[in-house]
């Protein structure tokens, strides 16, 4: 069963809306997610960049301090003779927030000076400590160590130990005029770097940064203790392979955005880690929001769709209802005219068509009624008592006058006349039979009028087996007698039948009677019963004309030509239709109205 328009519109609109909204939602979300990820990465890069700058500033200041100590104090002094305690203390005091201690050693590990003043631990082996070894191994460089607990001086009474990053360098000493190598140690307070980086890691998100050296050893990590105790894993060993910039790594079953920035001079790498889980959690709000908006929009569109589909299809449905009423045979169905121009046009056209159909049906009924009436009238005319009475009277007269042959003739003519009149109830008969009827009639009338006129029949053989409506010639002959030749001495009536140039059948009835003027001619084809002769058959030419028109159409019928004192010719014009049973039934079947009755 085909779907209704409304369902089709609803479903297609819903599906299209759904697809469009989903596609749009997904595309927008993806775009937003990508952009969001880019922004997060850019932000991390910015933060990292700024932190690197801060770190570099700090390390640079430490290097400058080491330079100042070396070039302004150590190099200028004879270590054997002079003390650089005051310069050292001054430098220490100026930077005590960033420093734990300053110390100067010779290349055998002997302490020359230190600030703040401290007592070396017993059995401390400076020579084995990495900062010392590296400084002498590469005297041209300044060396930054990994964070470690200072293990040189005796701990203060509060049992405090300091985490430091040792900045060490080889120095040239003047020891009593003898050049000597030494190592200048600046123990930087690790807490400074720790605080600097802690402040960047303050947010509660899972995102964090950590610092490692060029080989991946961790210098600072917000979860250092957890890493040490094995409660947390970090992918620091992969960092040396990463260049500066952002990349996505997979570690411990999790994807992370990793941004690396190198601290200059030291080669340390500052690493920012953003777990994608963190990013996805952050995006979950957006995701829910997008889904929410898409759902609300779709619901609104669904609702709107119903309204629109309803409004669009309502006129069509109303029109459909009207057609259904017509289908069900409702009398005077109210055809909906409204809605859009096209629907209104349809409704109007439908209404006009219905009106036309109704009118045609009425016309057809009226026509059938008229036909039936006309046929009935024609039939009734054949049993007009006057004609029968007069004819029987003539027959009685003949029998009484012992003119038996004439009587027989009259009776046979009458019988033949009535036989054709009845024609077994047929309305359409061959022209041959119609002519026989006319001949019968004329024979009877000639006897009655004592051969007051002559009649001749000239019928083309070609037309004898063509169809005609019965009882059309006789009324014309009757008129010709009663209006034409009755009172004449040499009255002549001529009946001709032939095929005209147009292929139609023409039957002419001509008389040389008194003729008629125009007014009379017109009156013959009017419906005015007052002009019908009561003594004749009683059927006027109007009846003949109507029956021909009703049966064959407006193109056919009677034509009357008359000149007063000259005569009258009545022409019967009918189509040439072979007389077959099929044609007869076809011509007679136009009786819808009679069938309904």
């Amino acid at each position, binding site marked *: 069963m085909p779907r209704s328009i409304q369902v089709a519109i609803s479903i297609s609109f819903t599906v299209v809306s759904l697809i469009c909204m989903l596609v749009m939602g997904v595309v927008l979300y993806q775009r937003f997610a990508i952009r969001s990820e880019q922004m997060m990465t850019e932000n991390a890069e910015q933060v990292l960049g700024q932190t690197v700058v801060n770190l570099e500033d700090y390390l640079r200041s430490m290097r400058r301090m080491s330079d100042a100590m070396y070039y302004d104090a150590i190099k200028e002094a004879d270590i054997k003779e002079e003390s650089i305690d005051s310069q050292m203390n001054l430098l220490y005091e100026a930077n005590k927030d960033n420093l734990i201690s300053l110390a100067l050693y010779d290349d055998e590990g002997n302490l020359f000076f230190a600030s703040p003043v401290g007592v070396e631990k017993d059995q401390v082996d400076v020579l084995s400590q990495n900062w010392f070894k590296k400084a002498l191994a590469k005297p041209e460089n300044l060396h930054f160590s990994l964070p470690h607990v200072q293990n040189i001086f005796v*701990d203060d009474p509060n049992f405090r130990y300091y*985490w430091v990053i040792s900045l060490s360098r080889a120095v040239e000493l003047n020891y009593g005029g003898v050049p000597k190598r030494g190592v200048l140690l600046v123990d930087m307070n690790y807490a400074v770097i720790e605080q600097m980086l802690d402040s960047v890691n303050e947010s509660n998100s899972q995102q964090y940064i950590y610092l490692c050296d060029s080989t991946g050893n961790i210098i600072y990590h917000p979860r250092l*203790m957890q890493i040490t*105790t094995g409660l947390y894993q970090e992918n620091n060993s992969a960092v040396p392979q990463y260049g500066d910039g952002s990349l996505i790594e997979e570690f411990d079953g999790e994807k992370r955005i990793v941004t690396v920035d190198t601290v200059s001079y030291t080669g340390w790498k500052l690493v920012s880690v953003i777990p994608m889980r963190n990013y996805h959690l952050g995006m*979950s709000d957006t995701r*829910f929001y997008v*889904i929410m908006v898409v759902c609300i929009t*779709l*619901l609104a569109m669904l609702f709107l769709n119903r309204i629109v589909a309803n409004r669009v299809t309502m006129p069509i449905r109303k029109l459909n209802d009207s057609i259904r009423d017509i289908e069900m045979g409702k009398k005077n169905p109210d055809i909906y005219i409204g809605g859009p121009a096209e629907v209104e046009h349809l409704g109007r056209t439908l209404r006009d068509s219905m009106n036309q159909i109704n009118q045609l049906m009425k016309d057809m009924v009226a026509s059938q009624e008229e036909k039936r009436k006309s046929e009935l009238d024609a039939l009734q005319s054949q049993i007009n008592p006057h004609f029968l009475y007069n004819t029987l009277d003539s027959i009685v007269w003949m029998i009484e006058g012992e003119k038996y042959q004439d009587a027989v003739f009259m009776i046979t003519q009458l019988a033949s006349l009535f036989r054709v009149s009845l024609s077994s109830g047929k309305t359409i008969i061959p022209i041959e039979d119609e002519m026989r009827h006319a001949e019968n009639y004329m024979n009877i009338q000639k006897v009655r009028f004592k051969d007051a006129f002559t009649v001749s029949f000239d019928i083309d053989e070609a037309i004898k087996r063509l169809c005609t409506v019965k009882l059309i010639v006789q009324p014309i002959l009757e008129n010709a007698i009663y209006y034409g030749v009755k009172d004449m001495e040499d009255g002549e009536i001529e009946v001709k039948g032939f095929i005209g140039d147009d292929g139609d059948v023409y039957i002419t009835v001509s008389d040389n009677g008194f003729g008629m003027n125009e007014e009379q001619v017109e009156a013959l084809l009017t419906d005015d019963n007052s002009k019908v002769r009561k003594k004749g058959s009683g059927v006027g030419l109007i009846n003949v004309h109507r029956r021909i028109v009703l049966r064959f159409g407006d193109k056919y019928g009677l034509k009357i030509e008359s000149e007063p004192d000259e005569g009258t010719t009545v022409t019967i014009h009918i189509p040439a239709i072979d007389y077959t049973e099929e044609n007869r039934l076809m011509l007679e079947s136009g009786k819808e109205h009679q069938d309904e009755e």
Partner: protein
Amino acid sequence: MRNRNLFTYFIATILVIVLAGSISGMIMSGMKDNPYKVSVVVVDSSSVRWNSFYNGLQQAAKDYNIKLNIVSTSNGVNMDQEYKLINEEIADGAQGLILQVDNSRGTENMISEISGKVALELVDTSADADVDVEGKYACIEADNEALGRAIASELRIALGNDLSNYKIGLVMGNQKQYSMQKRREGFLNGIESTGATIAWEIGNINNITNAIRYRQTEDERVDILVALCDDGLEAICEYALWTGDDVYIYGEGNSIRNVAYIDHGLIDSMIVPNEYYMGYQSLVAVYSRLENKLTPMMDEEVPYKVINKENLFSEENQRLMFPIG
């Protein structure tokens, strides 16, 4: 028409369900989960021996968004007092409890009762308890028997397997706790075959330093002083510093003071349980239980290290011994 309505209603229903889901998702993700409240009840809460333990607890509290409350207790707190404090904490809304019992014996009813109300994690020492098929509580502690043996082992490494000429003074710690009992047992088992004599033993008393001094001067002087707990080890070192007594000192400890004593050369060897690990993991265990009441709590072992002057400042050990921050 009916089909169209069914189709529309079906789509609309799905959309409404999805909409409701996304709205609740938004609300839920926007809602900051109320943090769990967990209380910590340990003996002598202000002792420096708990520093690493607290560091671990606090890191875990930060990582898991837990509101931590360390209940203030003195060194002399007993079980009844602990029980009272615990009930106060529960009444105050604590959902989890980390507990070091003062006395491991006779705690069945208490543990049964408490574990029925809150997620319970015993730390440092186990205690008497009924069979717990549901896993409503657990214990995280070192393998104390092995720890005791490790102290003995250090002695043997340093002084040899023949200690028949040595006398040992043993500071036993709180022997009401099973952890201390096991350490003692482990140490005695470990030292048994050496022939060393345990001259005297000091329990959990107020002035251990004085008691040691008394033992050394008035009673029987020993060559080796062994402490099974951090406080005892500190007391031994204070005695040594105070008197200048040149004794071998071994024991268990983790406080920065004892670490300094190693650095000083006072303590020859110290067994250090990873208290940071104990603190962190105890809170994680409580959190897991609170997140999923069906997850049974499981006992866990705390690792330990052997620290001496030679390896104190090694890269691996210094982070443990000298926590940053």
